[in-house]
């Protein structure tokens, strides 16, 4: 057994580590944020606060009792993150644009900054998460009891609650900057996310592969019913559970806190949309094996909610049990910390502050006290929330299965869904509709699910539960209107969320939003549009044209203001002086000013000179909202411009490459033109001579001359044809449009045949050709005709330009394990290293003067042919600096 002292030391040490992490990150965040902590991975890990001890312990219990049903709790969030990320993105965008601090803030802000709505949402949230907090207390208490033996559960739970309250106060309200983001807490939560994942997977691997003989062994002989459980897959309860978990991941105050409020960059959501489902997959993969092995190995009557802990203990693996305990502890603490911070923010901002401000205003106290008051109220709220959790645990007797308790909280926060979705997608949604829906929904939730969960110990007596209040069976909490065929949970969801949504829509349609509601509605629904806000008309009233001009001049500058007023005056038929101050002029001015200072400010300014001396609250709020929008827009602009800069850089590079190619093409065309014009010049000139009537009659021009001229014309025509063929050939080869037909062949044969072909000219020029062919076969994939063409071209060049006294050519073939080489070496000296760079260029000068008489396309074509056969043609140098040509081809592997 693990000693209680060891357990306490480990837990305290773990908490200390978390605290140090949070402390360091907070300190650093103030001066220089740590780069990797701003990563989307940390963000995703913090979202995994979704996996509480309900997951860590309860999922196994749920699997043992109801089979695969536990999957639904993770299916909902997965569907939301994969398929509905655009909804989350809109929430995040709104949260950033309006500096939203909590879900209550978002809902109240949307419905005209209604403080009553904020209080209502806060109350529902606090009550709804109470069972959830109790669940964490219960799981820590139970797991502690497993190790410490039989203890008084209530006492343990009390100390756990007190410890967690202290812990959360230290974490969440340590610094005086009471702003909405907590970098330190997020880092600690991310660390806890890793700990719980590691612990659960470690237990899963141990149970699956060491207690049992792998997954096949576990699932062998298990009936389908046992795995599917009592629940009917895709039945009402499955669908309800999936809906609830999908709702919870959006509406739970702590999920809203980590997903929306703590979001640093909107694009982090993109990563979370696949990484968070992956995390959930990791958390759930071993749930079923643990449950099945637990059912088989553990004695009957042992609590399946604790298998994760009791299985390693039963197998005498104490260190694993300790890790499991720590994982469960992690799951519980991370949930409690974030949930309590989120709830305390709501309580202090929406309940305590409005009251305090009213009192302070009366007593004329200094505003510096506000911050301290804020922190104090948050600390007290945290203690209060954990106190409520403990109370729930105490009253409900701490006996229910973990999963059942968690679901009560899920249904509670699901009441936010109608007014939340309606608020960000439907302009017509009104405050009255939201309040009515929330009131009905939460009341039904309390009556049908929350109060019955105490099992008749709190407010509702057992008699009411079984036969309805005053004996009216139609009002029985768990079968309202006689709907008794349903599962209690499905029943509660259908009644509370269903009526909530219907009432919300009906009341919204029947009521009219006030100005601020309408404005906020427009801003929220159209958050992706950068500017908004309709302009309300202002009466010209006592406005004076001179005042208007001064205002315009101050905002627009003297010249533009003068131009504007001249134009207005001209339209009124006034040639000299200022225009008359009519309503039309006022709204024209407002429109012009809005372009510079935003619609709201412009509205406020113009109404001031139009006679309404005081700027209303509405206008001030408009100004503030627009400023926030401008900030958000400029942040997006900065991102966009960085993106554009990168794109521009790539375009510049591409453009440079294209320009270089274009210049090459121009050069080539110019060369082609030059090469074609030269033979054409001779042809034209000599044909003009021959057809000239005077020369025709002139007997001093000999017949030999005439036939010499004809021969020149003939030769130049051939040269022209060859040139055209070559140009077409090389452009096709380079464009790759004429794929050569390649077949396996022996390179030695091609060399042999080429040498025989040039035998005529070598003999005539008295050049000695020696062949040193490799004794091995040289299998290559090549086009026999083309390879011969290359060899003949190089051989005949070597014959033509060999200036040695005793000209010799050596043809040598060889190979290594990958390449076949054909070297053609002559003793004519070849080209210099400087010229070597240009011999393969089309029509290169070096070509013309040194290597060829014609167009100088022979070598470029030869090289292009070799490239088309996956080989190469290069100019190599021997040790004594004379050059020779080398053909290479890949060696064909014969299997």
């Amino acid at each position, binding site marked *: 057994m693990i000693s209680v002292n060891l357990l306490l030391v480990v837990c305290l040490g773990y908490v200390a580590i978390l605290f140090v992490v949070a402390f360091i990150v907070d300190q650093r965040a103030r001066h220089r944020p740590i780069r990797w902590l701003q990563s989307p991975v940390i963000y995703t890990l913090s979202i995994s606060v979704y996996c509480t001890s309900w997951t860590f312990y309860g999922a196994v219990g749920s699997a043992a009792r109801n089979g695969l049903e536990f999957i639904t709790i993770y299916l909902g969030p997965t569907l939301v993150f994969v398929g509905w990320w655009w909804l989350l993105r809109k929430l995040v965008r709104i949260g950033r644009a309006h500096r939203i601090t909590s879900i209550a803030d978002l809902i109240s802000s949307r419905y005209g900054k209604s403080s009553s709505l904020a209080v209502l949402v806060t109350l529902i949230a606090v009550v709804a998460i109470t069972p959830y907090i109790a669940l964490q207390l219960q799981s820590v208490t139970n797991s502690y009891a497993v190790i410490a033996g039989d203890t008084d559960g209530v006492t343990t739970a009390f100390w756990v609650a007190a410890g967690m309250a202290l812990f959360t106060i230290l974490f969440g309200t340590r610094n005086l900057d009471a702003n909405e983001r907590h970098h330190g807490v997020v880092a600690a939560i991310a660390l806890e996310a890793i700990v719980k994942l590691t612990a659960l997977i470690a237990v899963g691997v141990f149970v699956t592969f060491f207690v049992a003989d792998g997954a096949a062994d576990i699932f062998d002989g298990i009936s389908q019913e046992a795995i599917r459980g009592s629940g009917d897959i895709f039945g009402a309860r499955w669908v309800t559970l999936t809906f609830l978990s999908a709702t919870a991941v959006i509406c739970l105050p702590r999920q809203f806190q980590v997903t929306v409020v703590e979001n640093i960059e909107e694009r982090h959501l993109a990563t979370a949309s696949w990484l968070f489902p992956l995390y959930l997959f990791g958390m759930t993969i071993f749930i079923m094996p643990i449950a099945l092995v637990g059912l088989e190995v553990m004695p009957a009557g042992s609590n399946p909610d604790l298998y994760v802990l009791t299985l390693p203990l039963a197998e005498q693996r104490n260190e694993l049990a300790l890790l499991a305990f720590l994982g469960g502890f992690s799951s519980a603490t991370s949930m409690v910390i974030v949930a309590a911070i989120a709830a305390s923010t709501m309580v202090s901002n929406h309940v305590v502050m409005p009251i305090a401000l009213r009192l302070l205003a009366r007593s004329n106290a200094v505003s510096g006290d506000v911050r301290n008051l804020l922190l104090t109220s948050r600390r007290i709220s945290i203690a209060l929330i954990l106190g409520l959790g403990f109370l729930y645990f105490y009253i409900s007797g701490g006996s229910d299965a973990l999963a059942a308790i968690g679901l009560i909280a899920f249904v509670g926060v699901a009441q936010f869904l109608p007014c939340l979705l309606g608020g960000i997608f439907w302009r017509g949604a009104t405050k009255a509709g939201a309040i009515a829906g929330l009131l009905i929904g939460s009341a039904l939730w309390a009556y049908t699910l929350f109060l019955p969960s105490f099992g008749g110990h709190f407010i509702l007596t057992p008699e009411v539960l079984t036969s309805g209040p005053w004996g009216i069976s139609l009002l029985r909490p768990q079968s309202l209107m006689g709907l008794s065929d349903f599962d209690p949970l499905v029943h509660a969801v259908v009644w509370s969320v269903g009526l909530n949504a219907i009432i919300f829509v009906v009341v919204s349609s029947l009521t009219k939003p006030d100005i601020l509601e309408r404005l906020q509605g427009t801003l929220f629904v159209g958050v992706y549009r950068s500017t908004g806000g309709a302009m309300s008309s202002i009466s010209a009233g006592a406005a004076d044209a001179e005042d208007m001009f001064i205002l315009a001049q101050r905002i627009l500058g003297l010249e533009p203001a003068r131009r504007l007023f001249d134009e207005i005056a001209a339209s009124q038929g006034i040639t000299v002086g200022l225009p008359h101050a009519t309503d039309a002029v006022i709204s024209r001015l407002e429109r012009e000013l809005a372009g510079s200072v935003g619609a709201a400010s412009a509205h406020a300014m113009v109404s001031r000179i139009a006679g309404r001396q005081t700027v209303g609250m509405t206008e001030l709020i408009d100004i503030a909202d627009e400023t926030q929008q401008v900030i958000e827009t400029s942040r997006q602009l900065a991102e966009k411009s960085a993106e554009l800069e990168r794109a521009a850089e790539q375009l510049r590079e591409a453009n440079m490459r294209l320009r270089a190619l274009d210049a090459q093409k121009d050069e080539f065309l*110019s060369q082609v*033109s*030059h*090469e074609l*014009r*030269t033979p*054409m*010049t*001779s*042809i*034209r*000139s*000599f044909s*003009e*001579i021959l057809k*000239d009537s005077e*020369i025709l009659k002139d007997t001093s021009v000999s017949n030999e*001359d005439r036939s010499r*001229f004809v021969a*020149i014309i003939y*030769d*130049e025509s051939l040269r022209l044809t060859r040139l055209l063929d070559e140009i077409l050939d090389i452009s096709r080869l380079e464009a790759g449009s004429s794929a050569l037909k390649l077949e396996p062949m022996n390179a030695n044969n091609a060399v042999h045949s080429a040498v025989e072909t040039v035998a005529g000219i070598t003999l005539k020029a008295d050049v000695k050709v020696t062949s040193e062919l490799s004794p091995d076969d040289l299998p290559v994939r090549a086009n026999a005709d083309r390879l011969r063409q290359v060899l003949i071209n190089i051989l005949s060049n070597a014959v033509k330009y060999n200036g040695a006294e005793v000209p010799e050519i050596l043809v040598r073939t060889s190979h290594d394990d990958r390449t076949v080489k054909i070297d053609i070496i002559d003793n004519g000296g070849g080209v210099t290293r400087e010229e070597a760079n240009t011999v393969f260029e089309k029509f290169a000068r070096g070509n013309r*003067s040194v290597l060829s008489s014609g167009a100088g396309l022979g070598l470029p074509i030869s090289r292009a042919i070799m490239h088309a056969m996956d080989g190469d043609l290069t100019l190599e140098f021997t040790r004594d600096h004379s050059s020779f040509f080398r053909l290479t081809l890949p060696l064909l592997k014969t299997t």
Partner: protein
Amino acid sequence: MTTRVLLAEDEPNISTSLTFLLERAGHEVKVETDGDKALETALSGWPAILVLDVMLPSLDGYEILRRLRDDVRTKNLPVIMLTAKGQREDRETAMKCGANLFITKPFSNAEIVDAIKDLATAVSE
């Protein structure tokens, strides 16, 4: 009227046809196929007219023309530039270097013979 014409041209067939035509017109013709040689002969004072190809081995036509214009002896030597390139920039370069005339290949025989006749008349006057 006999004029001494220097042909700086490396394409043998073209110089053959030009030699034939100019000798028939009564001129005295000398051919150089290399840039350096052509410059040397031109500076020697022998030719009265120079027909200069742009693409010549060892020294190109533009460079030859520039050097001739820098020399007092050949500052005013009439020069006809021949080129197979024929783009606008080539004509401009030729004129900037001080060519009297610019003829693009392929030319008509009459064009070049008449041009030399005109230049010869101008020189003698």
